[in-house]
């Protein structure tokens, strides 16, 4: 396989869209439940944990860019093959794809679980699964341009939800944050780690990089995308801490969704129902991007046509969705994805980076010797 894939000019995207891609894949179902996990670790200083996590995310993105810059036009699959050889590189690439698949499964299952808890307890998971997956298939069919279009539109059609947070925001109690700075440093770090699942997703940068037309201006949209999702998570968590009392928040699985329960307008008494439905616009870009990553990755490594992988993956996912309707299993899967994701997304680039540098230096040395 080629290390630097040649992407046709008409398939390339402007770097500007990287902002929407990064934000959309980071903000998904994770943000609904994140406040509880962060708060359990860092209590009223959770906002500090989120800031720490954000700084770390910036660092990871920085390292990712440095890795990618060593090559002309490569993605993670090419880089791994270049460095670890054909066999090991492909195994690592496959693991990457399995991680994406697990993440996709956990996102779909979590969203289905939320719909079941909030709106239709008796609906079968398979039906919502079929609906979601048919939407995913439809989008992937259109190719990367359509995917980016969907991501772009859904970004705007979901953000109005923020205005609804006004109601819980004015009911916040500042006492809930006081006394400040009570959490110890390890607790803060644990809190930061609890954001891993919500912040994960920006590793798509390693896949989508070859598609970017104007690579020189790709950095700002990527950093700004991470900043945007950081802002959303911070807003969600801060309002949750102010609005709920500590004991409540520690037991509230979907705190951000519960915030909307207080919102009530003259024409819609229970706005939380609409919010749960609307959340599909938040979760769907997430699922589409993950599915694209899976199909594209397999095409890159094994030369299987994307449509084939698309249907096979969808079918496997549907079977898994039908069987995994137990809430505890979903939680366990999400935990597992968060744990594995922590290593894959947040640690692995730091291991890869020095190896890439060494290899490149060695290559240059060899070139100069032969000359």
């Amino acid at each position: 396989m080629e290390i630097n894939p040649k992407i046709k000019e008409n398939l390339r995207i402007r770097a500007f869209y990287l902002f929407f891609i990064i934000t959309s894949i980071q903000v998904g179902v994770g943000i609904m439940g994140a406040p509880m996990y962060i708060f359990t670790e860092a209590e009223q200083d959770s906002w500090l944990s989120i800031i720490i996590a954000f700084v770390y995310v910036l660092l990871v993105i920085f390292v990712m860019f440095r890795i990618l810059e060593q090559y002309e036009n490569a993605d993670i699959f090419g880089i791994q093959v270049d460095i670890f050889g054909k066999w090991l590189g492909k195994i690592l690439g496959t693991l990457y794809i399995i991680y994406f698949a697990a993440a996709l499964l956990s996102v779909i299952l979590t969203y289905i679980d939320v719909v079941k808890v909030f709106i239709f307890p008796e609906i079968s998971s398979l039906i919502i699964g079929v609906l979601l997956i048919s939407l995913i298939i439809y989008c992937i069919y259109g190719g990367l341009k359509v995917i980016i279009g969907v991501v772009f539109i859904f970004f705007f059609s979901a953000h109005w939800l923020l205005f609804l947070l006004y109601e819980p925001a004015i009911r916040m109690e500042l006492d809930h944050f006081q006394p400040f700075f009570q959490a110890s440093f390890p607790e803060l770090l644990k809190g930061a780690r609890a954001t891993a699942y919500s912040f994960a997703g920006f590793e798509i940068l390693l896949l989508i990089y070859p598609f970017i037309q104007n690579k020189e201006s790709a950095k700002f949209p990527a950093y700004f995308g991470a900043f945007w999702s950081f802002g959303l998570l911070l807003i969600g968590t801060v309002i949750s801490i102010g609005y709920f009392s500590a004991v409540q928040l520690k037991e509230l699985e979907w705190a951000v969704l519960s915030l909307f329960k207080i919102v009530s307008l003259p024409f819609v008494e229970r706005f939380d129902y609409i919010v749960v439905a609307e959340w599909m616009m938040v979760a769907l870009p997430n699922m589409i991007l993950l599915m694209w990553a899976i199909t594209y990755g397999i095409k890159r490594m094994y030369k299987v046509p994307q449509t084939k992988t698309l249907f096979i993956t969808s079918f496997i996912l549907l079977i898994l969705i039908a069987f995994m309707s137990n809430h505890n299993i979903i939680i366990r899967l999400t935990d597992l994805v968060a744990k594995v994701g922590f290593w894959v997304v947040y640690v692995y680039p730091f291991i890869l980076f020095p190896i890439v540098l060494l290899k490149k230096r060695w290559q240059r040395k060899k070139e100069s010797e032969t000359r």
Partner: protein
Amino acid sequence: MRNTLRLVVLSLLLITSLTGCVEPKSIEDLGIINTRGVDIIEDDKIETTLVIYKFDSQNQELSSLVFGEGKTIKGARQNANYKTSFQLTPGQIRFELFGKETAEKGLLSFVDTQIRDARVSDTMYLAISETTAKDVITQGHEGAAVQIGKYLFELIEQNVEDNIIPRVTLQDFLHIYYDYGHDPYLPVLSTVTKSPTLSAIALFQDDKYVGQVPLKNALLINVFNKSIENASLEVQLPMQPFKKYMKSERQDENDEDTAHALMKILRGNSKTKLTNLQNMQFQTEVTFNVTMLELSEEIDLKNPKVKEIFEKEVEKNFKKQYEQLFKKLQEFNSDPFGYGTIYRINKPGGKLTDAEWHNKFPDINVDFKIEFILKGHGTTP
């Protein structure tokens, strides 16, 4: 062409198949619970009184009462379901009333379980009945001309909006209950006349009812929890200090000892700080910006000196009210003001349990500082 055909077939397929996905709920078959009363009857059994709305074309009456018994709230709803041809749904409960005896045993088990069901609204109001919940609801149903469910909800809602009583939704109750060192409060309804009326404010220690204070104290509690606007305020003042400033022409006729004033609060807020952690000494500053609406005696408020005396007198009056209320609260050992929260924030470590606070609360000292600012006095001075 092929694409359009595919799209049409697909959408038709979806439309026909999706409607079968969830159980249909047509509104004619539903009894939408609007108000629920909860009482404990003998040995832990719960009796619920439900006011339901029916949208059945044959029925003239829109709301009706259904009773149910059971060990849990949901069990009682099931039981009530046996007695009606409608399917009872809890998603629109706007108001929940608890009997006094039930409240004395603790409300948490009834209230907390509702949060678990995501379909229950957070915005429903809670209240306590002077007797039993059944009593208030049935009497109101028979007596009042309006629908009882609507009436009860609006009775509370309007008074909350007028800042007469603090906001008491399900979420407020739970949130205050779970905050360390802060006890919840609820309005009390009674049926002195045929229709239910607001009569007092119930105080809680944790989730247990411990006593009540008169309704006029509600404002004093309310101003602690948020800044209030547009509430009216009545005070009684001694005439003595004003005697020599009375408007001259009517001086001789005047023989009243007290004056009554009705004022509108433009803005009222409070600030509390802990002045001494060791002795648990607090200082609370309450500021009211008011404008005069009614004054029973001819006091010349144009005169800055009179105005000053007037403000002083009202402040004195309020300080006394606050001190009396506070003494009562310490007797009940219930802290709706949330002094415990302020104590927790200032305590090293920042941790405090409710039990700890109830040991300490009767011994705390509070220095109330009331400030009254008379911003205007209407059209006549």
